[in-house]
């Protein structure tokens, strides 16, 4: 297939970024962060969502989707392992928040490390035996794991079963910034900060040893192993880091929603997040962000066709994948980090 030149936002963006010097780059980054941070104030414009509150939509689904898609991208995009059970880590984070928040009296920020730790432990427990499998087998095992977590939560008494857990505390105020249900700007800013931290982590890792190991594993696992890469170790790392991001997103979601129940953590969430990753451009951080934003935002924006919106969503997935199979903003053919910074580390 010929490479199409129109619509090539990726190369345009890359050329602007690369031709800029340091102060200019800082300026670009700061302007875009400020623009994003101002998004909750744009509620009166054409961006407004018909039924759901606009600032709430920005936090969930949009913000949390972006965060989770970035986490899943470490697993699926960077190291090429198909994970269909990502929702499990999200659920573990959310339930950690719910149970610890309602029983121990710790606040959201103190619970966050626990949520991340539990998700990572679950990642290692699942990863150690299963990451030897490849391709579709890994997909089905992770899918099963996601379902097991949901079913265990659904059928156990400590999680209050199908009734879910209510009265989860909100995060404490940060100085003048107050967390409120009817005005979720502060939540949105917290999500943005978490997204920035995740982007920073991924970018740092991608140009260093783990990132190159993942890239090698993704391209050809056998060859990578022959080159002396400890493939299992790096695969588990990738899996665990993805889990950590999912757990963090879960903690925030639990604390924002005040109530969680098992039906929020079905396979559909895993599939949606995977769709965000592939739709936007698998492996490319910016593509993933664009994909998650669109897929998180679209169903709420088209609420006016209320009943058929999931149908439209499905059709959009089919059409976009058929015409842009590498996603809206695909990654470059060769990760340039490998060529340029191959010498250090």
């Amino acid at each position, binding site marked *: 297939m010929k490479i199409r030149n129109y619509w090539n936002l990726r190369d345009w963006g890359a050329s602007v970024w690369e031709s800029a010097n340091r102060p200019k780059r800082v300026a670009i980054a700061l302007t875009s962060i400020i623009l994003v941070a101002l998004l909750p104030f744009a509620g009166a414009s054409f961006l407004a969502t018909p039924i759901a509150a606009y600032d709430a939509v920005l936090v969930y689904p949009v913000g949390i989707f972006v965060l989770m898609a970035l986490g899943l991208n470490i697993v699926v995009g960077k190291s090429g392992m198909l994970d269909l059970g990502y929702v499990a880590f999200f659920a573990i984070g959310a339930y950690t928040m719910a149970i610890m928040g309602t029983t121990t009296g710790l606040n959201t920020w103190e619970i966050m490390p626990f949520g991340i730790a539990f998700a990572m432990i679950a990642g290692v427990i699942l990863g150690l035996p299963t990451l030897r499998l490849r391709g579709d087998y890994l997909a089905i095992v992770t899918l099963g794991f996601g379902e097991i977590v949901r*079913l265990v939560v659904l059928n156990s008494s400590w999680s209050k079963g199908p009734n879910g857990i209510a009265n989860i505390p909100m995060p404490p105020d940060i100085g003048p910034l107050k967390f409120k249900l009817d005005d979720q700007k502060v939540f949105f800013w917290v999500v943005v900060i978490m997204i920035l931290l995740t982007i920073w982590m991924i970018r740092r890792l991608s140009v260093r040893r783990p990132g190159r190991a993942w890239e090698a594993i993704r391209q050809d696992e056998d060859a990578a192993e022959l080159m002396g890469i400890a493939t299992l170790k790096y695969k588990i790392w990738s899996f665990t880091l993805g889990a950590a991001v999912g757990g963090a997103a879960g903690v925030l979601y639990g604390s924002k929603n005040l109530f969680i129940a098992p039906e929020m953590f079905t396979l559909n969430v895993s599939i949606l997040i995977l769709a965000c990753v592939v739709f936007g451009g698998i492996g490319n951080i910016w593509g993933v962000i664009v994909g998650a934003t669109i897929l998180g935002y679209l169903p709420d924006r088209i609420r006016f066709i209320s009943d058929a919106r999931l149908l439209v969503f499905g059709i959009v997935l089919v059409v976009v994948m058929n015409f842009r199979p590498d996603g809206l903003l695909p990654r470059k053919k060769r990760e340039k980090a490998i060529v340029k910074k191959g010498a250090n580390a």
Partner: protein
Amino acid sequence: MFAVLIDQFWSLTIAGVALGFIYVLISLGYTMVYGVLRMINFANSEIFMWGTFGTVITSRDIFHYTQTSEPATGGKLALVLVSSLLMSMLVAGLTAIFVEFVAYRRLRMKGTNRLATLISAIGISIALQEVMRLLTDSRPVGSPRVLEKIILTEVWGANIRLDTVITIIAAAAIFFILERFIKLSRMGKAIRAVSMNEDAAKLMGVNLNRVITTTFLVGGLATGAAGFFYITVFEYTKFNIGFTMGMAAFTAAVLGGIGNIRGAFYGGLSLGLLEVYASAVLGTQWKAVTVFIILVLVLLFKPNGLFGEAVQTTRA
């Protein structure tokens, strides 16, 4: 804990075999497509769901049976059952061809990455499910009772019901016919050739597009037949039943070794029995967990499935 299992062992076994045969037929839809394309036919669960509606439409709208009408007997019964079965197979077969055409063909011709195809299949299955949800108003649809569930005989304390007997015999027959078709017919030979080596098959003059469409069709026919048996046993359908059944059938396909038709047979039967026993011992709510844990264990110690070929390393 095991008292229920020991008490009702034989009736559980019969229920398990009947459920197992339904799984066998659905997992054919997964395993055949996987064998040829090396891809999960993600929309198969929705193909199954559409198939169940084929039966409901035939008995309710064509033969005008209602929830309260007398069950059919004799020749009329056979006529209604056979035409329901054919209708389910037809609906599911056409849906399967549609899925192949819309979600798979273009991407396959372009030779793109597998994930894109997976997402496109996920998209089409969301769309199929949503269309049915809108058509049925999100409500469960009960099927009129055409077949009276008379108890034929009693063996070792287990009641042998007519619907279970029909399900087991007819499903086994359909499986046998399809298996012979793959084994003996010219088209079946072409399907097996493509699943062994796509390029070599093409060089030998096999029409790839036609083979793949036929594979989807055969898988769809089997899945549709499963839809008919599902209705005969459970007498109810809903727009979202596809997921649970599809998941279980896919597990069955992996258990038996995906891509392998015999494997689907053993995998489906063992999964059906396993599920029924597990829910008798641990309670219904834990049966899916047991099934998945067993699946993980099988994959760990016998990664190709119980009867599979070495496919797990061929595509990373």
